[in-house]
């Protein structure tokens, strides 16, 4: 009966349990382990989920499963890497993290604008508090910036949605297709939605909050924001634009093409001059958002299904790589100077970070190469001036990114550190890094199964259940 919503129920129940236990349990470690258990249980339950639609607002299709798996994986890595500073984190930390995760899981299945909006807010509002969790000046500033930008973008999204509802008389995205016509108001609605979701995706010129927020937040939360929260924007855009707004696809596809070109170029060029690692990763994450938006720009072409599969692959791979790269910063530090001679100070972290950075550059046979390659292929298959320009820009930007990723690798292995005292590498953080690296390698080595499944997922979501 309620089989379709089991992962969300598990996460919600544990979130409530943890907040209750927070005031009775003296050992805070237990709360961390409980939340890890919740995420693991929810992940296992994904394999048993029935494929169905409930009430016409909630669909469990393969597309939703892919995103749920991404969110749960990132949350697992984030919680694992948070276990290090047990005393700094109170029970609210894990509880709010799980509630935000619950919102993301719900969002993955939303096929109704109302459901989608509530889930989006459930995922976003706890993350304001998480961004400012240490309540010092730095994290509070990050939280405040994040709050203001997220609320403005939510306002734009709601306005766009209300116009769509006024035009079509329905909030179900599959019913909208037949009722939506091309006119000024539907263009206006899609403009509001593009702008609102571009904030969530941190696409240029709506990116300004991302570097400040990622830099100011506690490092595991930076990983959570860039690897999970940001992916919600792509998820919602794929659902709303490719399905509901398909009658006016030619208009918004062009907007996404422009956004993609600007976003990847801007992100990669600004990343070159950063000296703070978290800031650099934030700009690189803007660049990668640009790569994913390439696929969104191809949704009105004949290769749309392939482009969606490529986007899903890059979303999955980038989430793991970026989470891992941020988590490495917990051990190594934030400043680029801290990375000099890291191979001597913290050899395991340095090795893992090197593999993740190579994957971010796109070195075969790692997963980052594969996913970029598929996006490139879909741009070339799509052809036309838009496809070829975006393909060329993707290659050029990948070349630019070698410089700033490569600089960290060269600092770690070839630069001399001022003091070469060993840094303690906590087991939990190392474990999170190893999981990320294994995922990156395995996806890179066995692509065909995953790509086939993603293609199936893309098809399932186009048809509807």
């Amino acid at each position, binding site marked *: 009966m309620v089989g379709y*919503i089991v992962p969300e129920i598990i996460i*919600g129940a544990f*979130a*409530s349990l943890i*907040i209750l236990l927070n005031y009775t349990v003296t050992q805070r470690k237990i709360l961390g382990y409980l939340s890890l258990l919740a995420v693991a249980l929810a992940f296992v339950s994904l394999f048993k989920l029935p494929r169905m639609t*409930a*009430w*016409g*607002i*909630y669909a469990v299709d393969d597309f939703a499963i892919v995103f749920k798996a991404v969110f749960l994986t990132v949350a697992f890595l984030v919680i694992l890497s948070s276990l290090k500073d047990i005393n700094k984190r*109170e029970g*609210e930390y894990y*509880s*709010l993290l799980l*509630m*935000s995760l*619950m*919102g993301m899981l*719900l969002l993955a299945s939303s096929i109704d604008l*109302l*459901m989608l909006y*509530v*889930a989006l*807010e*459930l995922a976003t*509002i*706890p993350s*304001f*508090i998480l961004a*400012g969790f240490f*309540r010092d000046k730095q994290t509070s500033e990050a939280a405040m910036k994040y709050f203001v930008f997220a609320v403005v973008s939510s306002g734009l999204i709601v306005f766009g949605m209300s116009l769509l*509802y*006024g*035009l*079509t*008389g*329905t909030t179900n995205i599959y019913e909208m297709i037949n*009722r939506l016509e091309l*006119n*000024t*108001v539907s263009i*206006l609605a899609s403009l509001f939605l593009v702008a609102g979701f571009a904030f969530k995706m941190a696409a240029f010129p709506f990116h300004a909050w991302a570097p400040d927020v990622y830099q100011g937040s506690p490092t595991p939360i930076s990983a959570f924001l860039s690897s999970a929260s940001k992916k919600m924007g792509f998820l919602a855009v794929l659902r709303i634009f490719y399905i509901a707004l398909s009658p006016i696809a030619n208009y918004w596809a062009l907007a996404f093409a422009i956004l993609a070109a600007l976003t990847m170029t801007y992100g990669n060029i600004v990343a070159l001059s950063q000296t703070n690692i978290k800031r650099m990763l934030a700009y690189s994450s803007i660049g990668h958002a640009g790569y994913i938006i390439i696929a969104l720009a191809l949704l009105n072409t004949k290769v749309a299904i392939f482009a969606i599969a490529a986007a899903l692959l890059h979303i999955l791979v980038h989430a793991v790589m970026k989470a891992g790269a941020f988590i490495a910063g917990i051990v190594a530090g934030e400043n680029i100077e801290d990375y000099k001679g890291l191979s001597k100070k913290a050899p395991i972290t340095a090795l893992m970070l090197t593999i993740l950075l190579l994957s971010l550059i796109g070195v075969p046979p790692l997963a980052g190469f594969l996913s970029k390659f598929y996006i490139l292929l879909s741009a070339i298959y799509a052809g036309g001036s838009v496809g070829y320009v975006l393909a060329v820009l993707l290659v050029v930007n990948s070349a630019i990114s070698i410089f700033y990723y490569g600089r960290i690798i060269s600092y770690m292995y070839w630069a001399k550190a001022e003091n070469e005292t060993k840094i303690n590498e906590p087991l939990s953080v190392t474990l999170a890094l190893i999981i990320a690296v294994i995922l990156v390698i395995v996806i890179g080595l066995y692509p065909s199964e995953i790509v086939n499944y993603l293609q199936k997922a893309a098809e399932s979501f186009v048809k509807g259940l």
Partner: protein
Amino acid sequence: MKDLIMFLILSVIAVVSSLFVFLSKNIFRGALSLSLLLVTMAMFFAMLNAEFIAAVQILVYAGGVLVLILFAIMLTKEREPSVSEVTTSRAVALIAFVVLSLFYLAKHTWEKYVPEKEFSATGASVGTKLFQTYVIPFEAASFLLLAAMIGAIYLARRRG
């Protein structure tokens, strides 16, 4: 005819009170005229046969949200509020935005898509929708409130 006269009276009240919200220098008076605007909105809903929404509008907005705003004003009373000046460029931008959006919205025919005619906003029908079709977002919203509450208590609590 009766409806038209009623609508015109309410419109004048709504427009004047919303102008007063951002023109008045005294923030407390601004909040009070906002409450007038919200009550007028409730009357509009009542005129459209949406009694339930009218009641919710008064309960949630005129009741809850406004009390929250007044509390916020009272708690931050010591600080001098910074009222931004109405410059020419801002006024032009505002007027241009209003005129353009009115132009686009007026050009469009909305009657064609009156949403779900058979659905009447009585308590029973709203309850059925809320606890059947929309039970998942309803529960999600309750988690959302819980998260906001936990977060607010956490941020307000003293460290350690």
